[in-house]
């Protein structure tokens, strides 16, 4: 990367969903391919991942939000400017599925600034097949109703984890309105506090 921009597009992705559905585990699997018993997330966490798709260098900033209700007011400010939102539920707990339409989609509607932002429904923990209570058909129906992409995955067995991020990103790449302001000019996308972090990041990988 001696010359040219460090990346072609910078995307902001967001993970939301009830507490304990495995948002942080999913992200950990995606970014560092490990799995661990994780503590509840405090507020917001974020991780970077570089990937190449269709010959384009992409930099993903994935924001992992806390599912705890108290943090909702806080996390809502992170919806701004997200190109992709991953709605996670736990296939072994129906509440987490019903709360997506009751709570989380409303949050998205209220706080998201990108009209065309891509939503992706992800049913996690399919490794616990015995305890499954939400069927794949229900997931598909939900996704169809609300216009989301849909995948079932397992952060534990890494099944479909990579794929779910990839599909989301491909869809974003297919949506021209979302590609505005995502090129390497970093202004407008990242704000003060983050900018320094970001420049550090870039200098370290160059």
């Amino acid at each position, binding site marked *: 990367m001696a010359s040219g921009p460090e990346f072609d597009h910078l995307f902001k992705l967001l993970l939301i969903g009830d507490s304990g559905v495995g948002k942080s585990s999913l992200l950990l699997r995606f970014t560092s391919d490990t799995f661990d018993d994780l503590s509840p997330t*405090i507020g917001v966490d974020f991780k970077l991942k570089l990937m190449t798709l269709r010959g384009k260098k992409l930099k993903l900033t994935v924001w992992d939000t806390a599912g705890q*209700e108290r943090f909702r007011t806080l996390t809502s400010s992170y919806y701004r400017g997200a190109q992709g939102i991953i709605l996670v539920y736990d296939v072994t707990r129906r509440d987490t599925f019903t709360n997506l339409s009751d709570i989380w989609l409303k949050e998205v509607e209220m706080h998201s600034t990108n009209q065309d932002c891509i939503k992706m429904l992800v049913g996690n923990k399919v490794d616990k097949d015995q305890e499954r209570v939400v069927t794949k058909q229900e997931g598909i129906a939900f996704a169809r109703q609300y216009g989301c992409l849909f995948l079932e995955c397992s952060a534990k067995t890494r099944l479909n984890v990579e794929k779910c991020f990839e599909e989301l990103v491909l869809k974003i790449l297919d949506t021209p309105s979302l590609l505005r302001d995502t090129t390497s000019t970093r202004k407008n996308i990242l704000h003060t506090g983050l900018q320094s972090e970001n420049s550090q990041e870039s200098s370290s990988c160059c």
Partner: protein
Amino acid sequence: MEIGFPSSVRHIAHVTFDRFQGFLGLPVELELEVPRRVPSASTSAFGVSVESMQCSFDAYGNSVPTILLLLQERLYEQGGLKIEGIFRINPDNDKEEQLRDKVNKGIVPYDVDAHCLAGLIKAWFRELPKGVLDSLSPEEVMQCHTDDQCISLIKKLPPSEAALFDWAINLMADVVQEESYNKMNVRNIAVVFAPNMTQMMDPLMALKHAVQVMNLLTSVICKTLNDRERSVIPSSAVLWDGSLTGSEGEESRPAKMLEVVHSNLTLRAQMGTGHVYIEAEGRCNDLNTLNSRTSARAREGYNDLNSIKSGTRAKELSVESEIVEEGGSIDGSEYSSSVHSSERGNGGDDHKRFSDAWETSSDSDMTDNALEQKIVKSQPLAILLRKRWKPITRNKFEEFSQRKWSLSEESYPLKKGNSAICSEKQCNEKIAHMNIQDRQKSLEYALHHKPWPAIALSFMENGGPLKKGEKMKGMKPSCEGLSPISELSAYRAAHPLSKRTLYLKHNGTA
């Protein structure tokens, strides 16, 4: 369909109603359908200051809103503490709203999702007009690094907040104690509770502050857990020497001794003679220093018994059984007054009430009294009772008993049928055929294995021959009265508000 006149009418109860007290004299089985008083001066239980709410005492003597105790009680009843991710997992939004409506009417129904209960407890804290820890400045919290600093900081809280905080800490400690089931360790529970303890407008500041509060909570919970671990009762060993029965020459009154050895204290409950006294001594490994009337021997292996049987417990349980007998202790204040009356020991009706069970030794001086009070306070009944159900105790005992003795089934008359419920007469008959050692073993068994104190106590009563005509002095609760002194009353004592629970469990409907 024609409805005829009512037949076989009986007068069951005289019920009155007034707008302040609600229904009085209502049979307990009808109570469920009738909403209680609105739990606060306003029409909501949430978002209302503590001062305007109806409060009760919890098992630790904290005055907290009754509605919180009810939520807690239901949560415990439903085994909520053992559910994976309790307090972390969000409840179903609709269900939580439904429950919230009911709670606002003063009802906490039975068949609710434990996560809803946990969620509402958190929500209650979150929606307080002022966060519980808001009186501490963020700077102060930030500067807290050591445990001692945290403790001293917590002491700065105003009384009502301090009570709430202590209640919450104990709740969290209870959760952590079931970590093997619920996977909520100290950090996890602190993370999910911390943001509900403070209120800040600026989200970023709130986040930073939440982290500090989380550290604070972690320290305090750890300290609470350590205190529980170290506290007199659970970690102490019981020594009992049965060979002393009637060994005092002239005096043939059964005189048995319960000894509790602890790092700083020796508790002695001398049974049968009507004296309970507690003495401070150094670590009493040298048992020759014990009371001259006995030659209690240290039993190997007792140290690793995390059992909770002790003189104090026996004593407190006698208080408990008293409560059960009276059957009237419904609210927290009554409960605590009963306990206190046993502390007082030397006065008035209260004393009389307990006197045929136990007397506080009249020759105990002030320091002993103070000490006793301290012990009773530091180790409320609730912990004892809750601790009793810890599976580890049982496992440890089994492991221990197999290793040490491998006694046959017959040696443990109480074990049969997996229950200590047998009539007093049966017990006595069994004991009569046993030599003193076996008797002792079965007592030990009862003490260490069975949660029912009355068995152990009545064993002791019957330990020695009585002179003819001498009136037996002993515990009120007999073997026959055992069933109330079981899990039900454990709950009841631990959660003073659970009168209705008791009823429902008796009838098998809960």
